[in-house]
């Protein structure tokens, strides 16, 4: 657990120092996205990696957070912070209610139900034109402010987003190392044994689904307030799949893995700008190859790879 603390401090230092090195560059704005994606990936990982329950609809919760917060603050003049909180609580409540029937399902059926949920949200973003602006998007979302200090430049956005991201990392680590985290892993490994141990599997799954939706909604609101503009294409099925890819690439069930996965899959397309249209192909390939050859994700796979390449300490047996 102390090693986790060390990692966290190292990460925090990097997060603080990074802008000094990169300030004003284009990479700063990319790092803002890395932070948002990391929050989403960690949120999804709580569900997918820890509790073993897939969701192919998380882009929907992200989108709900972005639209609801944006609409409340821009159309109805609600204070952005308040809008963000109201939205996140409502999204969590919605997830909690929908969660009961959805999480009763298993495997492919669960994947399909969450996917359907995400697509329904996506269609609503597109079709409720009066509210959302439809396919052309919704603009004029005010930035978050503290007093008269507005989060509106790259550097300020970076600070805001990464403060939330680090908070998410810390809280998720705490959760993972607690009785709840253990119960979630237990559900993943053997649902029936977890129940026999007195874990209320059904309730816990729904609670974690709601928590995951809550974090995703916060990430969505942050996205809306920092960008000032949202449009449905950011919240489609493809993005849900990208999120799953981040979690899988980083490693199921590791908080830092999700962070790394989010970083790689956000930076990679930027680095591959020259091959713009190839990114979808690369996503597909990464997804297949990772599942086939490194099912534990980078966080586990890379050390294992080193161990195999450098057989210095051969194990007996």
């Amino acid at each position: 657990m102390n090693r986790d603390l060390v990692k966290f401090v190292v990460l925090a230092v990097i997060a603080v120092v990074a802008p000094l090195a990169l300030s004003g560059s284009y990479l700063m704005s990319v790092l803002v996205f890395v932070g948002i994606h990391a929050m989403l990936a960690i949120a999804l990982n709580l569900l997918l990696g820890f509790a073993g329950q897939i969701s192919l609809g998380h882009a929907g919760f992200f989108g709900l957070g972005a639209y609801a917060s944006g609409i409340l603050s821009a159309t109805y003049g609600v204070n952005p912070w308040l809008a963000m909180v109201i939205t996140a609580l409502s999204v969590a409540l919605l997830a909690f209610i929908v969660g009961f029937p959805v999480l009763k399902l298993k495997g492919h059926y669960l994947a399909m139900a969450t996917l359907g949920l995400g697509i329904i949200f996506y269609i609503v973003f597109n079709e409720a034109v009066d509210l959302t602006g439809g396919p052309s998007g919704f603009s004029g979302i005010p930035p978050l402010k503290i007093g008269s200090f507005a989060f509106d430049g790259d550097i300020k956005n970076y600070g805001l987003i990464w403060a939330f991201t680090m908070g998410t990392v810390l809280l998720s680590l705490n959760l993972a190392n607690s009785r709840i985290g253990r119960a979630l892993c237990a559900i993943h490994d053997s649902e029936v044994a977890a129940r026999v141990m007195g874990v209320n599997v059904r309730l816990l799954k729904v609670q974690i689904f709601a928590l995951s939706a809550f974090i995703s909604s916060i990430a969505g609101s942050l996205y809306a307030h920092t960008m000032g503009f949202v449009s449905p294409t950011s919240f489609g099925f493809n993005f849900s799949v990208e999120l799953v890819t981040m979690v899988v690439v980083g490693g199921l069930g590791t908080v830092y893995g999700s962070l790394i996965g989010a970083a790689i899959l956000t930076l990679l397309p930027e680095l591959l700008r020259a091959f713009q249209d190839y990114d979808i192909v690369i996503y597909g390939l990464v997804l297949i190859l990772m599942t086939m050859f490194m099912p534990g994700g980078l966080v586990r796979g890379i050390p294992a790879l080193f161990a195999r390449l450098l057989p210095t300490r051969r194990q007996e047996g």
Partner: protein
Amino acid sequence: MDNAYPMNIVDQLTQYLFSGLASGAIYALIGLGFAIIYNATGIINFAQGEFVMLGGMFSFFLLQSAKAPLALAIIGAILLTTLLGLLFERLAIRPLKSASPLSLVIITIGGSILIRGLAMLVWGKDTHALPSFSGSDPIELAGASLLPQHLWIVAITVVVIAVSKLFFSYTISGKAMRACSYNSRAASLIGIGVRRMVLLSFVISSAMGSMAGIIIAPLTMTSYDVGIMLGLKGFCAAIIGGMSSGFGTVMGGVILGVLESLGAGLISSGYKDAIAFVILLLILFIRPQGLFKRAETERV
């Protein structure tokens, strides 16, 4: 299908019913593909929709660049898609020995993205239309106007379904596939090769999917990304039908197609796709075993 002159409500309903039947037939074909692979392997093949897309796209490009006659282009497209289905099974599914359902979901999603991406790179993002199989003069029927292609769709679907029914009921390979899907271990104990059956299921499903993609392309156009929605709708049909590789899924497709078409006509065409997914969710919540399947008696 917007009409220039107002029809009376009965004619309108008939019209929706007919176009719903045609799209329902397509969903049924795609859904059968899902069900066949699911029954043989326990995998939901999220790449099924891409086979549908490939059918339409291969046909179009064979027609255009190879200047093949329509019938030949169609046969070629089915063969090419089936070949890809076979390759997909060999390269992505077979190497996974004891994978969890989660990794199987992820790998077929990966496959679907990959195929879609490659299609985009090779063929671009434009939408294309196949010519109708036999003209496009509407036919009047019971107050509604139908395109000949609608009839082609229904007819071809009926034939494909009948052939597959015969295959599964009367040929030794078909029976072996059913046996394998019921109990693959017992099947291997009497010499039925499970991997062969899995491969066969991918071959059949990709062929069926490509046919669906081909017969609908003259009506709705085709492009590299049509597979997503069509695939998902097909999956809805299969779920409604309880993942049966027969009657249930066909009914599922028809119900979905008709409800969707009625909903689009009477409520809002923008929410047409949402209607399909609301139906999907309701079925999953209320009767996850599908509408047409008796609750399984528990195995002892």
